[in-house]
């Protein structure tokens, strides 16, 4: 780990269960320093935004594992997908919430451009929605101006956050191909994505002005907390079915 606190601690993680993925991310939210993690899910999993109602997804929940995220936003099918999580002090991302999505989105856009993946223009801004709730429960059916769209206009990357004290957990989801339950999401043309996590990690470190430090797995000092959260929070109906 960086000793001066100016590093970006990077975990290029393997596919894990829903409970473990969310437990590790909350552990990093509670940790010190700045962390960037890229991971996948096994088996394919449905994740709900923190404020969403479980009963609205009865059909999907009967078919695949699911979990409630600590972050906001809509439901996501994690299938052929990369999930990104960035946990750090919120002053690193700026005071305004909408603007705080910028560093990760800009870094991903730049990385995809380096990989010669064409992107579409962002969805135009509209007038303030006067506290309107989303029209659809699916994250990828409801693009907002900061989301990344494919050249064909489909949403391919969206984000959500959890803010706790002076820290923020930023979740991002990059859908590589459309899941059958949510066919409007993701790229229509495949691209070689294996190099993306490491390239993106270096790019986000540069955007944040931090030095990247790559880790082989979650450091031992954090494992007990992650195991506790996985077992006693993210595997329990008291969390997942709280709404």
């Amino acid at each position, binding site marked *: 780990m960086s000793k001066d606190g100016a590093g970006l601690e990077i975990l290029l993680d393997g596919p894990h269960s829903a409970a473990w993925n969310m437990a590790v991310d909350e552990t990093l939210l509670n940790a010190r320093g700045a962390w960037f993690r890229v991971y996948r899910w096994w088996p394919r999993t449905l994740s709900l935004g*923190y*404020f969403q109602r479980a009963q609205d997804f009865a059909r999907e929940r009967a078919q695949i594992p699911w979990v409630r995220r600590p*972050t906001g936003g809509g439901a996501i099918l994690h299938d052929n997908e990369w999930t990104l999580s960035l946990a750090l002090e919120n002053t690193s991302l700026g005071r305004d*919430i*909408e603007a705080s999505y910028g560093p990760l989105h800009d870094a991903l856009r730049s990385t995809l451009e380096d990989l010669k993946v064409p992107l579409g223009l962002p969805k135009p801004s509209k007038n303030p929605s006067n*506290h309107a*709730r989303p029209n659809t429960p699916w994250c990828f059916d409801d693009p907002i101006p900061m989301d990344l769209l494919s050249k064909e206009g489909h949403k391919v990357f969206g984000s959500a*956050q959890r*803010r706790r004290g002076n820290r923020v957990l930023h979740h991002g989801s990059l859908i590589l191909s459309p899941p059958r339950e949510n066919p409007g999401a993701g790229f229509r043309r495949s691209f070689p994505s294996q190099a993306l996590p490491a390239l993106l990690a270096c790019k986000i470190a540069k955007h944040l002005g931090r030095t990247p430090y790559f880790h082989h797995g979650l450091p031992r000092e954090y494992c007990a907390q992650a195991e506790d959260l996985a077992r006693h929070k993210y595997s329990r109906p008291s969390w997942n079915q709280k709404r």
Partner: protein
Amino acid sequence: MAPTDRKYLKSHEWAKKNEDGSISVGITDVAVEHLSDLVFLDLPEVGKVLEKDQPFGEIESVKAVSELLSPVSGEVTKVHEDLADNLDLLSASPYEDGWMIQIKPSDETEWDQLLSAEEYEKIAHEE
């Protein structure tokens, strides 16, 4: 300007003493500005016991869930039940109509640990 008849946390919650000894709690206009487009709010139930600087509720805006911290320890005696369905109140009147909960404080000394309006303004504008 932050009203001078109450105290603050640097995380943008305000606390105001009422005549009956209870303390009203809400979030500042700076918080509302940062959060921008509010969509969901979750507040505790009456009777819940809170600890100072620990979450008493959550609010979602622009897909970000922010935890709301309690300025003092004590028991929740009143909740603004209609606020979750009228989030415009928070934007229009964060210091009066947008109050969130009332607390019966359990430790009077915690009041002196809170920021004055002047101290809060200074911190809020340095961010």
